[in-house]
């Protein structure tokens, strides 16, 4: 019987149950499909439920496993894909009104790889329009409506991977795959209380995915645990000739690694002190918990570069170029969010020299961040310094902690994205309005396995990742 304990048990446990033939992939898929169809709309988490495809894949999985052909831990596991990734014959809308009837005749590489691993695609999940890159300033920035966190649906799920975060959190899928350019995996993961990993730039192929910024876009897993992130990343990582940015470095993750030596973790001075009180308190408790398996160095200085200016210039320049057809045709007027309707016109005013200066300064900043990361296994920080706001409130109207006085917090998420390095965000408690908070571990390029090990060690001594949102 597929009860809620099974639904929320996570990829590894589900895989073991399927392999042992205690769980039927078909029954599991039916259960998740029902939840996706009934609960998903309440969270504005779904664009397209792929019922026919899902049941066909589930039946194929069940038949193969019965015949002794087991593909691995994702075999028969239902998942959702951010609607940024093409699936053959199924609408791929990019969360953006002019593309709501767009259909590709091929699978994105990650969709193909997950099918080869035996995973079952049950839905294309909602996202912020224009991949959230041209300045949306409120939660209502998708034709599917504002994404809602299952923990308090009056509040924003975060974005741009809004649907994947909400669906994973609410047990509508066993795992999902999202994308990040400037925070779009880790931020919604934090607001929805799931474990989400931004991978190293080039770790996962982006072939068949919408492009926002060619030099910033990354794809990664969003799951119920860090361990599950490792299992999913196993399936989707790797070189792809269709994405020249991909690396030939191998990623291999099988089980919780045994480790005798302690990790070395840095806490950055200025990254958490002025967060919302609950966010700060939860982060400090998380750091204390990490002392069980890591040596923590506090008050570490972070390289001082204009990360916001770097990211903003690259985002607007590349994002405008990526969606130029909407700018030139006037179809930007179809955007849900007013800031998105005009963001492309702002981007058209950035000079080539200013864009190149951003990329030149980026290199200097990246090298400085790389040097810092070479000294530690990870940097730890709050994923966000505040919980998400109400879905009907503009972002700039929210009261930020000491927002208008003193030095702003060190921007770890922009800096990590600029440097192209990985990070994993895992839940570490709750803040205002019962919205989850997250702790992120940022590591050197290609250190995903180590970050997963650190986050998994944290999840061995805490249970925030096992909590379930209220029934909807």
């Amino acid at each position, binding site marked *: 019987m597929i009860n809620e304990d099974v639904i929320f048990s996570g990829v590894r446990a589900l895989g073991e149950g399927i392999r042992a033939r205690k769980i039927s992939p078909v029954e599991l898929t039916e259960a998740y499909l029902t939840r996706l169809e009934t609960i998903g709309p309440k969270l504005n988490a779904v664009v397209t439920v792929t019922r026919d495809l899902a049941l066909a894949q589930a039946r194929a999985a069940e038949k193969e496993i019965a015949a002794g052909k087991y593909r691995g831990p994702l075999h028969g596991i239902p998942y959702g894909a951010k609607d940024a990734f093409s699936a053959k014959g199924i609408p791929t809308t990019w969360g953006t009104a002019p593309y709501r009837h767009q259909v590709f005749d091929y699978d994105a590489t990650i969709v193909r790889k997950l099918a080869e691993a035996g995973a079952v695609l049950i839905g294309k999940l909602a996202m912020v329009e224009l991949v959230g890159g041209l300045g949306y300033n409120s939660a209502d920035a998708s034709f599917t409506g504002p994404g809602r966190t299952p923990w308090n649906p009056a509040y924003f799920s975060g974005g741009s991977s809004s649907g994947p975060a909400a669906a994973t959190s609410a047990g509508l899928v066993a795992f999902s795959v999202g994308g990040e350019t400037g925070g779009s995996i880790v931020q919604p993961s934090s607001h929805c209380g799931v474990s989400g990993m931004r991978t190293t730039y080039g770790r996962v192929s982006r072939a068949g995915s919408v492009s926002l910024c060619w*030099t910033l876009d990354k794809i990664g897993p969003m799951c119920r645990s860090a361990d599950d992130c490792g299992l999913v990343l196993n399936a989707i990582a790797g070189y792809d000739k269709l994405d020249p940015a991909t690396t030939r470095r191998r990623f291999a993750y099988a089980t919780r690694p045994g480790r005798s030596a302690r990790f070395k973790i840095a806490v950055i001075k200025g990254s958490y002190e002025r967060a919302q009180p609950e966010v700060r308190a939860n982060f400090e408790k998380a750091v204390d918990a990490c002392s069980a398996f890591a040596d923590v160095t506090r008050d570490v200085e972070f390289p*001082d570069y204009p990360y916001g*200016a770097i990211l903003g*210039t690259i985002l607007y320049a590349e994002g405008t170029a990526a969606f130029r057809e909407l700018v030139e045709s006037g179809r930007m007027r179809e955007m849900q969010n007013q800031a998105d309707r005009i963001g492309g016109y702002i981007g*058209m*005013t950035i000079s080539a020299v*200013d864009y190149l200066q951003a990329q*030149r300064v980026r290199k*200097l900043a990246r090298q400085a961040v790389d040097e810092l990361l070479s000294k530690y296994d990870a940097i730890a920080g709050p994923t966000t310094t505040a919980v998400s706001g109400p879905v009907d409130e503009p972002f700039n109207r929210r009261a930020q902690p000491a927002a208008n006085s003193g030095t702003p917090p060190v921007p770890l998420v922009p800096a990590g994205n600029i440097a192209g390095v990985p990070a994993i965000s895992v839940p570490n408690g709750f803040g205002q309005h019962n919205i989850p908070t997250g702790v992120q571990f940022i590591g050197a390029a290609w250190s995903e396995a180590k970050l997963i090990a650190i986050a998994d060690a944290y999840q061995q001594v805490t249970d925030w990742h096992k909590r379930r949102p209220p029934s909807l």
Partner: protein
Amino acid sequence: MRNGKTRRSFLRTLPLVPVAGASAQQQQMPDQSLKLEGALAEMVQLRYGSYLQAGDMEEIKRGIARMERNAAALAMVKTTNGDAPDFLFHPADTPER
């Protein structure tokens, strides 16, 4: 920080209004900046005016101002001729890379 001064300490010294004793050039900077932003906004109006709705141009001007502030912050980071952008050109597809 390569130029020996933190970005944050520099930005605090940027004058929002002309100050007594500032050079004529320094006093002209805010005026020039406004003129540049106005010219860029006019370019947007010329090229895309038919697509804009009431209220859009004010938001666009604010966005242009943000981009100009970004550019100013980036220009403060000292770069030399040898500092290349953080991407490379490859003359041929080289799978061995």
